[in-house]
């Protein structure tokens, strides 16, 4: 509790005591006690109301409360005027505390800002602000300390808790050469780390910026309710005026009971319970996502996710691991090792993903290689151990006049020729993520109607991956602009929202175009983080179904809050107009609705994860 809140609490207690005294005292003493209770509980409300009127701000709840309770006192309803003010203050205090609590618990989830970095300079340890760490500085990270900037381990080994960054609950073992991410906490061991980025460009700073700007994109429910509140309050006030004026003027009714009813309307017209309930629900939903290592940029993304109809996946790096390896070796009358050796030598200097895969299949090949010529779209020719060699597709072999046996293997096949003879073929492919099929089944169970895979690969390999993970539809051999067209036509045909999931490499336009763009695999690429609506901080595709069910839950809670708040307000207005509901009930309804809406919203935060 802040100082201000403690003071309010003290005032509430004091006014409650006076209020109780008012019941036992008689006549003017009683009235004086109630009046004092009213003043002590509500002097700041009154003062704010006066200042607001001077600034030309009417119709805010401070003014409405002052007017309603002031009129009650003027009609000598002493206890009612005081009680309503006290309850209003209790409600406000409770609301503030509840909102603060949820704010703190959500901020706690994102508590990953490093406080300091230990920089080694000339053998001495210097405590430095993370912002002052230079690229190339050597940092010392002891057990229990948080890594301040992204870097590489130079010395030592340890175990890192990366859960706040990636949502991955298992600790990661790191050793010399491992890349480490800022914001993770060293659980055991001592690490010497070379800083690879400045703090402002490190993972943790990017995540924090993302979180801080997260609630910019408001959900339509949020916008709707504030718009509604803007009209609601003046309308109810107008109704109150009519209620006080018409029956006495035109129907010869006594003035006082109708004025009381009108004052009840003024209390009910306070909009805060409505306005608080919706953003708080979405905020809690975003907090729950953050707990799972997903950053949702605003309520609108949750709203769209809750009506997901089609989920579109990029293949490479999303459904698959995005790392190529040799899947099939078909030697032509020689040993497998010899085939791999020649291939690795040919590809020794290329940085094509396929070359990387061939090299890692035979890490340090014996022999010499010279005259390497890369022919883009075909392959490589080189001189290996003094004789002509070639590694490439069938077109390359054709041009060299070498006849090959075409393989049926799925993936990209590389044919190898050496000294004018055909040595055999190697097929390189990607690996499907372990839980891809499981994630797609879960999505379908969650009501997703269609799953689609987009890929630049050839039809045959696309088909293989699509079947393996049980995807409904796939589009192969797409160029980047074709992916954009594919999303456009899917959006046109979908009833609900179209969600695109990519690894953020080269797919920023598609991320923007889809109703919800999800970038998987961290905050590596600026363009992807900017374009995406949701960033999944690690590359666990299994989080996607969790995200969608969380979004549905959040939206349900927000809707419950809207309906509940409107219903209670409506019933109270009706009862108030009939003279059944008193100002007491009205203020209870207002405060009670706010509190229940807040508690309901917190359910989104503590959402169960299947």
């Amino acid at each position, binding site marked *: 509790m802040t100082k201000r809140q403690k003071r309010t609490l003290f005032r509430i207690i004091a006014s409650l005591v006076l209020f109780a005294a008012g019941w036992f005292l008689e006549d003017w003493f009683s009235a004086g006690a109630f009046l004092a209770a009213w003043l002590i509980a509500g002097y700041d409300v009154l003062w*704010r109301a006066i*200042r607001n009127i001077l*600034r*030309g*701000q009417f119709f*805010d*709840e401070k003014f409405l409360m002052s007017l309603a309770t002031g009129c009650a006192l003027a009609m000598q309803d002493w206890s009612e005027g005081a009680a309503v003010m006290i309850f209003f203050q209790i409600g406000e205090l409770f609301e*503030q505390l509840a*909102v603060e609590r949820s*704010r703190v618990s959500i901020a706690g989830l994102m508590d990953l800002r490093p406080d300091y970095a230990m920089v080694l300079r000339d053998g001495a340890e210097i405590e430095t602000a993370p912002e002052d760490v230079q690229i190339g500085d050597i940092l010392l990270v002891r057990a229990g300390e948080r890594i301040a900037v992204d870097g590489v381990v130079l010395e030592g080994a340890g175990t890192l808790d990366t859960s706040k960054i990636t949502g991955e609950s298992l600790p990661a073992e790191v050793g010399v050469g491992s890349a480490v991410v800022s914001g993770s906490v060293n659980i055991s061991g001592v690490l010497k780390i070379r800083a690879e980025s400045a703090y402002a460009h490190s993972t943790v700073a990017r995540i924090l910026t993302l979180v*801080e*700007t*997260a*609630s*910019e*994109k*408001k959900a339509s429910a949020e916008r709707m309710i*504030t718009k509604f*509140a*803007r009209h609601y309050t003046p309308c109810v006030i107008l109704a109150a005026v009519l209620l006080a004026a018409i029956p006495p003027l035109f129907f010869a009714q006594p003035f006082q009971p109708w004025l009381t009813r009108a004052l009840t309307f003024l209390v009910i017209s306070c*909009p*805060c319970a409505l*306005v*608080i309930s919706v*953003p*708080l629900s979405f*905020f809690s939903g975003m907090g729950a996502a953050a707990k799972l290592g997903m950053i949702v940029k605003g309520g609108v993304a949750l709203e769209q996710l809750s009506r997901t109809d089609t989920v579109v996946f990029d293949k490479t790096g999303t459904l698959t691991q995005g790392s190529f390896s040799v899947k099939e070796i078909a030697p032509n009358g020689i040993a497998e090792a010899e085939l791999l050796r020649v291939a690795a030598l040919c590809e020794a200097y290329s940085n094509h993903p396929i070359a990387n895969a061939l090299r890692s299949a035979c890490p340090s090949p014996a022999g010499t290689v010279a005259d390497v010529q890369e022919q883009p779209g075909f392959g490589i020719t080189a001189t290996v151990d003094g004789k002509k060699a070639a590694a490439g597709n069938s077109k390359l072999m054709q041009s060299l006049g070498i006849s090959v046996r075409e393989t049926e293997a799925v993936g990209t096949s590389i044919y190898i020729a050496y000294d004018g003879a055909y040595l055999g073929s190697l097929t390189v492919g990607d690996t499907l993520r372990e839980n891809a099929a499981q994630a797609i089944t879960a999505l379908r169970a969650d009501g997703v109607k269609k799953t689609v895979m987009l890929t630049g690969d050839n039809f045959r390999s696309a088909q293989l991956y699509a079947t393996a993970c049980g995807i409904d539809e796939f589009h192969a051999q797409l160029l980047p602009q074709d992916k954009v067209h594919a999303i456009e036509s899917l959006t046109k045909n979908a009833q609900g929202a179209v969600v695109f999931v990519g690894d953020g490499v080269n797919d920023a336009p598609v991320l923007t175009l889809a109703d919800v763009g999800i970038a998987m695999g961290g905050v590596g690429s600026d363009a992807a983080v900017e374009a995406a609506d949701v960033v999944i901080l690690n590359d666990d595709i299994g989080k996607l179904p969790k995200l969608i069910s969380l979004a549905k839950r959040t939206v349900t809670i927000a809707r419950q809050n809207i309906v509940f708040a409107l219903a209670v307000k409506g019933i109270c207005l009706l009862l108030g107009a009939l003279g059944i509901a008193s100002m007491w009930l009205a203020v209870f309804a207002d405060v009670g609705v706010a509190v229940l809406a807040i508690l309901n919203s917190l359910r989104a935060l503590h959402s169960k994860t299947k």
Partner: protein
Amino acid sequence: MKKTYRLKNLDCANCAAKMEASIGKLAQVESVSVSFMTQRMSVTFADDVDADSLLKEMKKRIKKVEPDCEVAEQ
């Protein structure tokens, strides 16, 4: 250009909504979002707008809704 400000003592959700509506009416402001939950306001405006004088005008409008609310640059 986009700028984010911290709003201290932003006490009520409806006030945040009012501020958003009032600042949104400023001609220089392209878009504005006031979040009660994060106590932050982010404003987008054209690059040739003088940020300081805009801030002054925004502060005036914020104070009008909630006199105790302090605006701090991030």
